[in-house]
């Protein structure tokens, strides 16, 4: 497996990114404020209205360093992608499957199996780790429901029905998600998912975590030669990285939700890290976003054993590993796509 490199997050809106030799140079009002060798970087994520020189973008495109531009609130704006990696044969196979719903469902259901399986094990772990804090009976019941939905998903041959089963599973899981917030419960709660804009602190963090994950996923898919915009479960919609969203399903809970819960339960964030606008939209403060990104970067370095490959890799490489496995499945090396089944 490849080595995980760093991601540079630029959170100040008035920084200009430029290239000097093999280094990225950060400029603020023409003054140098930072300089980093690019060969240590895997990607660059810039928040707010930042500029980047064409020379830097060209350098990064050639070397597979993803540059992503986000709004200050963490909404995706654009990504710099170089010449798509050769591999026409792989992409054609991807398009062929995507165009055929009965073929798509065979891959799509494995994404959903991964998602529900991982949600189930988040719930099971909670019953083990905090039996005195949570309603164990209810959690066990939800876990049982998820188990039985997984078996239905496994046998599902129809995309519409698959979406129905996914909705059912999400409904059960969401009932447990709010109860996994064990600290600062006056300020942090989860009732349902709200976005554009998020309407509470938890949703504000979930939005940012999902965006970062989707972005890593899209970059990983492009890097192995797949088209991040053509999906199997999520159908084509202009500007939507459907395949990235597909593969990300299995990581939402175990990567993003658990991460956000940790920030709350370990009191790394608190109510002062959020700002509520007049319309109820909740924003993270600049300070909060910095804390969030630093913790996210640490999470990426944590090691985990990949359940199918049996290899120890860092969390940050999981999107890459799944993209690679998907490519290898599409090329006929594997009998099915192996989802990331966490326990």
């Amino acid at each position: 497996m490849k080595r995980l490199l760093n991601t540079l997050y630029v959170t100040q809106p008035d920084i200009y990114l430029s290239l000097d030799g093999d280094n990225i140079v950060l400029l603020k009002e023409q003054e140098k404020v930072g300089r980093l060798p690019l060969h240590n970087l895997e990607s660059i994520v810039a928040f707010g209205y930042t500029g980047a020189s064409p020379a830097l973008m060209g350098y990064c495109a050639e070397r597979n360093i993803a540059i992503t531009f986000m709004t200050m609130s963490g909404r995706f704006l654009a990504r710099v992608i170089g010449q798509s990696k050769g591999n026409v044969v792989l992409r054609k196979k991807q398009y062929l499957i995507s165009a055929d719903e009965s073929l798509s469902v065979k891959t799509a259901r494995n994404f959903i199996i991964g998602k529900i399986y991982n949600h189930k094990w988040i719930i099971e772990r909670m019953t083990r780790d905090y039996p005195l804090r949570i309603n164990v009976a209810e959690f066990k019941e939800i876990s049982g429901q998820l188990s039985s939905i997984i078996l239905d998903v496994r046998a599902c041959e129809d995309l519409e029905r698959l979406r129905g089963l996914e909705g059912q599973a999400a409904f059960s899981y969401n009932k447990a998600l709010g109860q996994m917030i064990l600290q600062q419960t006056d300020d942090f709660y989860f009732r349902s998912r709200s976005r554009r804009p998020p309407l509470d602190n938890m949703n504000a963090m979930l939005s940012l975590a999902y965006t970062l994950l989707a972005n890593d996923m899209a970059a990983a898919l492009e890097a192995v030669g797949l088209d991040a915009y053509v999906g199997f479960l999520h159908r084509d919609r202009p500007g939507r990285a459907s395949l990235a969203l597909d593969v990300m399903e299995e990581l939402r809970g175990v990567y993003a939700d658990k991460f956000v819960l940790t920030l709350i339960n370990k009191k790394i964030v608190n109510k002062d890290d959020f700002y509520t606008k007049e319309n109820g939209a909740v924003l993270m403060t600049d300070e909060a976003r910095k804390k969030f990104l630093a913790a996210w970067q640490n999470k990426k370095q944590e090691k985990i054993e990949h359940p199918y490959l049996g290899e120890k890799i860092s969390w940050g490489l999981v999107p890459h590993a799944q993209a690679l496995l998907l490519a290898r499945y599409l090329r006929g090396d594997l009998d099915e796509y192996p989802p990331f089944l966490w326990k």
Partner: protein
Amino acid sequence: MAYNDEDDYLMLSGIQHFQFCKRQWALIHIEQQWEENVKTIEGQYLHRNADQPFTREKRGDKLVVRAMSVKSHELKMSGICDVVEFVQDSRGVEINGAEGKYLVFPVEYKRGKPKTDESDVLQLAAQAICLEEMLLCEVQMGFIFYQELKHRVEVSLTDDVKQKVRSVVAEMHDYYKRGHTPKVKTGPFCKNCSLHSICLPSLMTKRTVRSYIEGKIRDEASS
């Protein structure tokens, strides 16, 4: 063959990949995957010397030409000879821009030392077939310069070797036409492969994904 466009010609240098591992060749030449490692960088560095298309040296009765593009319609392959030496000899052929007749010897530069497999020899023989076709001559001998030995090894390019090239190349074209990346036997040589992290050789011996998934979810149902 269904395709005759010269753009579809295979790369000569691929013979070496193909001999090392058919899957490695397919990943590079069919799937267009490439990953640099120490060895590939060393290889590029070594070739900087050979890669000077605009120089042509005259040394006595010898003319040394570098980075010469060659192709063969018969093999449907093209590539670059690191060095081609033309030695003045009455049994040879006339060449463009030089007086007299010349014998033709391809010279290939390799990092490392002579390999146990035939890959370097076959690559050189394929270059010889190209040169024979382009110059209407016979090429019976060539050289491989090994960086680690710091000297060249003489290679006899017999009809047998050239025949072997033809059959290997036919197999390559067959995979290429089908766009097929073969699964292969893995081995210790996988450790030296620059595509190790893309190929995931461990997948070749892994259990099926079906049993992986069903094993995990059946556990669930019974627990």
